[in-house]
Each structure stands twice: as structure tokens, then as C-alpha cells.
């Protein structure tokens, strides 16, 4: 299979790294080779945050080549506009979904989980792996609520 390239972007504190971690774990549990790349430190003090997630049979570069992003999850309009040129011609920009989710979800700490639910519709990873990945990351913290939010997003609307 072709390597899948997902770009997460936004600002510090939005749960972007957590979201990318969950996708990475889910892909790993489904048996894929995973590389996930991001930068910590000063860059994180409320500044821009981006995480590159790639999975497939064998992944080389940890960062996605410009113009090769298959799925883009932006959690911030400014960051979206700054990074959108990295999206592949036929790549999927999920910012519209985010904008809608932002209106719908009142407790913002579940926004990233909701977006993962949306993304899950396109990736074909197993439900068991998603659940295990979320368990790993959230531990017992609101785990039932996270499952619920994830499932509500992944079960409605158009399929791939």
C-alpha cells in the first residue's frame, strides 16, 4: 500500500500532539510502520504546533514532502492558511469539518477526539485499534466520553 500522509496543525494546547499520537498508535496496532514527527521546546509556548504522521508498509522520511499531504487536520484558521499549500492536489482538507465541529462541541477538550472520529472514516483502521490507542493516551480520563464523541463523529455522514 501507499504511505498515508496526515498533517496536523494548530497552536499549543489544542490537543494536536495527542490527536496525532492516537492515530500513530492505532496504525501501529493495525500492523503498519509508523513515523510521527513534531518539534517540542520553545516552539510550543503557545506558538505554532504541527505534527506529521505517516504510516504504510515502510516509511522513510519522518516529515511529509511539500504537496504530498493526503489529509490535513487544522485546528486554527491562521495555521490552516499558512500550511494549506502542503496539501496534495487531490488531498482532503478537513478544516470545514473542524469549523462545524467547533460550533457543535461545547466542551472544547473533546474537539480533537471528534476530529479523529471524522478522520477515521477515511483511514480504514480497525475499531479495536482506535479504542486501544485512545485507552493508551487518555488512560481512564473521560475515556467513555471520548469513545462516545469519537463514535458519534465516525458513524455519521458520508463514507470515503
Amino acid at each position: 500500500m501507499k504511505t498515508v500522509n496526515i498533517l496536523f496543525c494548530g497552536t499549543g494546547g489544542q490537543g494536536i500532539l495527542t490527536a496525532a499520537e492516537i492515530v500513530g498508535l492505532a496504525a501501529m496496532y493495525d500492523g503498519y510502520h509508523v513515523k510521527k514527527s513534531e518539534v517540542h521546546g520553545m516552539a510550543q509556548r503557545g506558538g505554532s504546533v504541527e505534527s506529521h504522521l505517516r504510516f504504510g508498509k515502510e516509511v522513510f522520511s519522518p516529515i511529509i514532502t511539500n504537496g504530498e499531504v493526503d489529509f490535513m487536520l487544522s485546528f486554527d484558521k491562521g495555521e490552516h492558511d499558512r500550511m494549506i499549500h502542503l496539501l496534495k492536489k487531490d488531498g482532503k482538507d478537513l478544516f470545514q469539518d473542524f469549523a462545524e465541529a467547533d460550533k457543535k462541541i461545547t466542551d472544547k477538550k473533546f474537539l480533537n477526539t471528534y476530529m479523529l472520529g471524522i478522520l477515521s472514516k477515511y483511514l480504514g483502521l480497525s475499531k479495536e485499534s482506535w479504542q486501544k490507542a485512545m485507552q493508551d493516551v487518555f488512560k481512564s480520563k473521560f475515556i467513555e466520553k471520548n469513545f462516545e464523541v469519537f463514535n458519534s463523529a465516525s458513524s455519521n455522514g458520508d463514507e470515503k
Partner: protein
Amino acid sequence: MNTKNYKLLSGNEALAQGAYEAGLKFAGSYPGTPATEILEYLTQFDEVDAQWAVNEKVAFEVALGASFAGVRSIYSSKHVGINVAMDPLMTAAYSGINAGFVIVTADDPGLHSSQNEQDNRLISKFAKIPLLEPSSPSEAKKFIKLAFEISEQFDTPVLFRMTTRVAHTKENIEIGQRQSIENKVFEKNPQKYVMVPANAYKKHILLEEKLLKLQDYSEKSDTNIIEIKDKELGFVADSVSYLYVKETYPGASILKLGMPFPFPDNKIKKFAAQVKKIVVVEENEPFIEEHLLQMGIKCTGKHYTYRVGELRPENIRDIVENKPKTQYPSGSRRPVLCAGCPHRAVFVALRKTKVIVSGDIGCYTLGSLPPLAALHTTICMGASVTIFDSLSKVLGSDKVVAVIGDSTFVHSGITGLINAAYNKAKGLIIILDNGTTAMTGAQPNPSTGMTAKNEQTKKLDLEALCKACGADNVEVIDSSCKSIEYKIKEYTIQDKLSVLIVRYALCKMIDRTKKPAPLFHAEKCKKCYMCISVDCPSIVKDEQGNIKLNSNLCAGCNVCVEMCKFGALEKNK
């Protein structure tokens, strides 16, 4: 793929896991991005004495001492941390080791979180020690085990170079069993461990011979691999650059250097003989390229403009054509002090007093950015105190103030303070004691009274220490703009050396408690924007120019309230 024993680990975590499996018993480090997670990961193991040292020179020496004592040992720090440890490093190359000793340098091409982008591969040649360079987390785990073997086989420290990209990439990593390694015996051997001129002279002769043997090893090592495919185009690459080449030119021939130094000259010649055009791809300095040119091998290196910054996969085609760099990072959001950060009040006060501020390395370096713009020099760890020493003598002690964090002060501010007192400097040094090493993610340090393993230990008494160093006045105060401003004025005009310790308010990473956000009375707001000038992420100006207070983000520090002259912001009791 069997996923049972796999974890998604970063390069740093994979390295640490590999070192643990290789029987590691000691680890010394000082926090610094992108190296911090190595030591943090090792604190989970009871078999490993993992410690935050007060600075990198100390970390290096205690780690080297552990190797002398007979246990496998590791030193890790960011690239500039190695500068602090250079003194013992250069001579450890001569003395050699006892049990395996690995020096990890985590370089930062692209300066994601650093003051320079020095290329520490060059240290291997300078110090005459072997260099290993993984390109991925899985390789970091594999290579670190090899590093201990090389160290013991050749009686040498091994330089292990990570970069931000390798250190902070996560990959599936297989978790293995820990090897049981017996402690080596420490034998009294002055010819080896006492580096006086006569002994060191003989050691230098042995070191040159050792390098030849290491070169022979490098020739045979499968860390340096030739992959022959298309014979028209061949790449020589190391570290993550190798993966960018694989991504961009999957059909090209590659000589991958996992152990670039000592250079495997015969392997390089063999590769050169098989391909028509050679392109060298490496980040920062032309370390490999210059060696090939020195060997008389015709090759294309990157345009000099690509020495600046990190490489990306899309740059490889430019490098093949020797084109200059055209893309520079831009437009990303600048970092800012957290809501409720105790440093904010200090910088607001410093800005108001208009003094020249010699600053240091930490979160508070962000105080240099507008609108605070109240920090005017930053060079390296500890330099706030020493630069202040001279600035105050030349420009006047009432015009200059030094600012340094608690961890940085312990790292290398103490010697500067002793020097300032000894050489009769006057004026004010402010220690920002937020109770942690914040910039790197809140690690403990001697003034917090906790160890890396979160155990209680002796707590360094900063007040007594500053007095003992020779400060005339030492005062501890809370973080409020008005009292700090008052104290700055009071101490800068005295003909004394004073230390002001700003304490009590903790870094928001270790103290997540929030006080209520202030009340905002929009009708009283005159839009003077003084509240915005404190540069807090929780108070902003909207598109219409109205003040918007984000109560969810606000930690209730009330610095903005102190700024408001019109009562539009009111402390919420």
C-alpha cells in the same frame, strides 16, 4: 506485524530504551531541547542511576567517573551543552574509559529551540573519538548498543549524534530484554587515569594508533552501507538526510554513513568507482563533503545557503542541482509566556524602569520579544551575570540589571556572582525562582529539593548561597509589578551588589491552580491597550479593537489589572 512488544517511541526514548537493554547503570544530563527525554525516560528504571546534574560539565564528569568505576554510563545534552563539557571531553579521549561510555549530543539544525546550530559531528574529528549517527528511532536503539561495544573494544568514549528530527520522531520500537553486564574492576593505573604531560604524551601516541584501528572497524562496519541501484547517480548521506534521499530518489545508489568518523575511505572509494555522479547530502556543515574533496573525489555538495536550517525532503532535488536555498521559515506564531507566568510581572517592571537587561537562557528569554522587549542580551547559560558585571562597570550600575532563572543560576550563574563580588561589581541581579526548569518541560534542580527520580533531597538555599558568594543585599519578594519596580529602583541606585529573588509564584506547568479571572468592565475601557502590552495569551484585542478576556485561559495573576488605570479591569476576589 506482531505488535505485542512494540511501543511508539521517540528517537530519544528509543535510544534510552536501547541503552537500558545494553545494561546501562548510570546516566548524567542537564535538561535541554532536543535531548531532555533521554534522561527522563531513564528515570523509570531502578537499575539505572539517572540524574540531572547542575550543568553539563558536571554531568559529563560524573558519567565518566561511573565508567571509570566499572559500569556502563551515558552522558546526554543538547549540542550547546557539549560546549560546557568540552574540557573533560577532550581529555577523556586521551584517558579512555573503563566500562562503556557514550556521549550523546542532540543537535538542533533549524534552531527550533536553541541559540545556534553548531554541527557537533566536527567534535569527533577534533577530539579524535568515533562518531555514530542514527537516521531514525529504530536505528538509535540499534546503534546505542553498538556504541557501548565500540567504546569497550577500543577503550574510547563514543560520540553519538542525534538531531531534533531524529530525537523527536516517533516510530514503532520493539522492546527487548535487558542484558546482564558485570561491573568492570577499577584498577589504580596512573598512566591511564592521571593525565599529566608525561602520561598524556604517551596516550596521544596510542590515540593516533587507536584512530587507525577505528578506521579499519568503520570500513567493515555494517553501519556504513553501500546500496547500488542506478549507477548514473549516487548519494553519500548520513542521519535523517539519508531518509530524505530514499524518499525523493528511491532508485538512486546510496552510501549511507552511520559511522561517519573515522571515515571509511576504502568504502567511499569503492562507492565512487561505481557511480557516475556523486552528491553529498548532510545537514549544516559540509563535514562529509570536505572529506571527499580532500580524498580527491569529485562530488556535488549542497549550496552554501543550505548550511543554514534543517533539510526537508523537497530540498534534495535542489541539492542535486546545487541550487541555492530559497525557502526560509516564516509566518509561524511566535512563542509567548504562559498565562499566569510569574516572569511577566518582572518584565513589565523592567520595561517601565528602562534599564538595560542582560538576560539568560530560559522561558524568560521570551521577555526580549515585543511588546515586553525588556531583555537586551542573551548569549549562553550563565552569561547574564557575567555580562552584567562588565556592562554595569562601563555603563553604570544604576543602568543595568541582570536576570537569570533559578536553574540557570545553579548551572553557571554562581561562578559569575562570585566573580562579580570578588571584582567589586555593583548593582542588581534578579533571580527568577519559579521553582523549576521550565523551558524544557519542568525538571527539578538543586534549588527545588527534588531529584530526577522525584525523590526528596537536600534543597539548595539560594539566599545563603548568594550571601556566601558576596552579595551585600539578598531579598526575596513576590511577583507583583509595583513591588518589583520599587525594588529595582531601590537597589540599582545603591553602591552595593544586590540579589533580588522573585519567588512564591510558581511556573504554571507545576502549579496548575487558577485564581479567578479579573472582571472586565467594558464601559470603563478607554482602549489604551496597556493590558495588551503585558503580552498575555488570555487578553487580546479583537478585530474591532475591543478587549477580549479569555477567562478559561486566564490564571488570575492580575498583572493586566495592575496596568489598567481606568478601572476597566478589576481584581475578582
